[in-house]
């Protein structure tokens, strides 16, 4: 029983990492209708900014705040100067542009700071807390807590604020939104900036464990995409819950289903998605998309 609970707790922690990235992807999708393959890369770039600043002697919190500002500006600029040209066109082209962006960011990071694993300072200490016979690291708890807060804030933003409503309007029908007086361009930039900030937070939380390299979030990106699709492209709560489910079920399947084992445990999220989509094509928490012919 102890092992089971431990696996669940560990799965929650791993899932939080995927969830953080998934939140950023959902935000960009809500704002611009694109899947941003470079989300992880942009997040890692922000983490490097923190790393460089802390190496210069700045305290971690200050460095993180500066990096968040940097990421908002960076995200907004990327939208305005790179993505704007492709948003109205073929979605495949836009996705490949994000792939190109990811390649570029990875290359720049590799050039400036090498591909070596860099030590990253941790926001939370490495102590463990023990309850119910299970030991949890403070870092896992902290990561999960921060993600929950981010998820709630984002959900609140989408549902409760004018900004969130405006972002969604722009995504659904940019022309109508423009006619209603919304500054579409600025809203798009805000969307991308916010997403980049979310990504930065995710990267800063996870870098101490994964060590900082240009490709740090490449593997997490696939899981984040899976969480996004499982949870439904429109729901922040949905994707985080989906990410947790993926993290937990993966661990459990690996240990309790010998046929799957640790090498094929990566199949679990996809089997899960397949089964869920059979029943609910819009994802666990997504909203049905109505297209008028």
């Amino acid at each position, binding site marked *: 029983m102890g092992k089971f609970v431990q696996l669940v707790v560990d799965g929650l922690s791993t899932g939080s990492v995927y969830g953080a990235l998934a939140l950023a992807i959902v935000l960009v999708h809500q704002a611009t209708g694109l*899947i941003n*393959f470079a989300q992880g890369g942009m997040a890692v770039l922000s983490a490097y900014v923190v790393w460089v600043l802390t190496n210069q002697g700045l305290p971690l919190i200050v460095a993180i705040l500066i990096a968040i500002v940097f990421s908002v500006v960076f995200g907004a600029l990327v939208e305005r100067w*790179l993505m704007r*040209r*492709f948003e*109205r*066109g*073929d*979605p*495949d*082209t*836009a*996705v*490949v*542009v994000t*792939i*190109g*962006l*990811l*390649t*570029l*960011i*990875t*290359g*720049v990071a*590799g*050039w400036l700071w090498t591909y070596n694993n860099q030590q990253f300072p941790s926001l939370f200490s490495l102590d463990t807390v023990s309850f119910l016979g299970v030991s949890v690291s403070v870092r896992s708890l902290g990561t999960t807590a921060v993600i929950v807060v981010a998820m709630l804030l984002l959900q609140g933003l989408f549902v409760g604020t004018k900004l969130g409503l405006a972002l969604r309007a722009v995504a659904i029908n940019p022309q109508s939104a423009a006619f209603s007086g919304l500054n579409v361009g600025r809203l798009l930039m805000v969307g991308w900036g916010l997403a980049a900030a979310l990504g930065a937070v995710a990267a800063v939380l996870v870098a101490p464990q994964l060590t900082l390299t240009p490709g740090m979030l490449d593997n997490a990106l*696939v899981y984040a*995409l*899976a969480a996004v*699709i499982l949870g439904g*492209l429109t729901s922040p709560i949905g994707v985080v819950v989906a990410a947790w489910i993926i993290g937990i079920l993966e661990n459990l399947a690996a240990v309790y289903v010998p046929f799957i084992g640790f*090498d*094929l445990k*990566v*199949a679990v999220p*996809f089997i899960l*998605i*397949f089964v869920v*989509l*059979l029943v609910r*094509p819009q*994802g666990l928490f997504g909203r049905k*998309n109505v*297209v008028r*012919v």
Partner: protein
Amino acid sequence: MATSSTNPSSTNPSSTNPASATSVSTSSPATGSAPPLWQRPWARAAGWLLLLVVLAVLPLVMTEFVNETLARIGVFAVAVLGLNVVMGYAGQVSLGQIFFLGVGAYVTAYGVSNEWNIVLVFVLATLLPGLAGLVVAMAAARLGGLAIAMVTIALPIVGVPLAKRLSDYTGGSQGLSARFAEAPEGSGLFDDQWQLYIVLVIGGIVFLLTRSLVRGKYGRAFAIVKGNENVASSMGISPYRYKVLAFTIASLIGGVSGFLYMVVIQYTSPETMSFGHSIELLAAMVIGGAASIVGSILGGAFYVLVPQLTNQVDASLTTLLQGVILLVVLFVLPGGLASLPRVLTRGRRRSGADRGPAASPTTPSSTPGSGTAAEESETERQGHA
């Protein structure tokens, strides 16, 4: 070293004519009563003949390295072609094309290592991935674009550890070597020339067959399904059936590219079908030109030549340079490299005093290339991930 100007563009009659890389469509700008030079039947026949001669002679005069590079371009051009069928023409997201290439390569390696008849190996290398594609598509196609996208992502991601686990068949993480495409005695050919001929012949045939497919009724059906599934079903075209068909064809072609991969590289390992390569194939498809036969060849060339080029410039900055090249190409030509002639003629037409708007094609399948992004209306795709 090979540059893209020596690509074996084996399918296009007007490829020798720089003014138009698109195939003949009903939308030719009519400037007079006689069709332009490159649309006259005798000119096209002469073009095909010239192309054939060039392709036949090419391997004999080029250096070993150029031949090997061209052969690799051919391999990935076929892979991108498969991806184009399902993504470019039929509009379904597929991030798993490399999986079919990998399965084809493994089947080939296994068959050759066990000394099966080579025709049998080829047939299996094509059919087994095709079967896998059929099964996957039948299950996922009913569920909409999201499911297809996810399932295709799953294919290479689960494929890699699966290839490692089935090490009795796949050689595990050490991979399988299979030297078999050696030039036959008495032909006087070197290995690299022989391999290039194989790639040109098999690849050429696949390209021709696919070209017939997408220009015919199937291509038109794909385009309608891509545009709007509800419209398609109201016209009596079953989106499900055509999605499955497109996917199966893509996986069959992927299997062929896997066979050719073994002919040229003669080694395969789980890394062959890693998810990263799927992403690179997608990028190559878009850069070459989605929904374009010529674009597939250009995409294959991009896939092979850019890493070589960036290596020459600075081996430790390859990623950075590749990112720059990708973004620059897309910025200048959002419709991909295959849209370059169209962009040029459009530019010329605008600056000239020609009458009439740029005639947009009535049948999308007959005009390759999805057009510049800015000029076409947003393509709605249900559930596109």
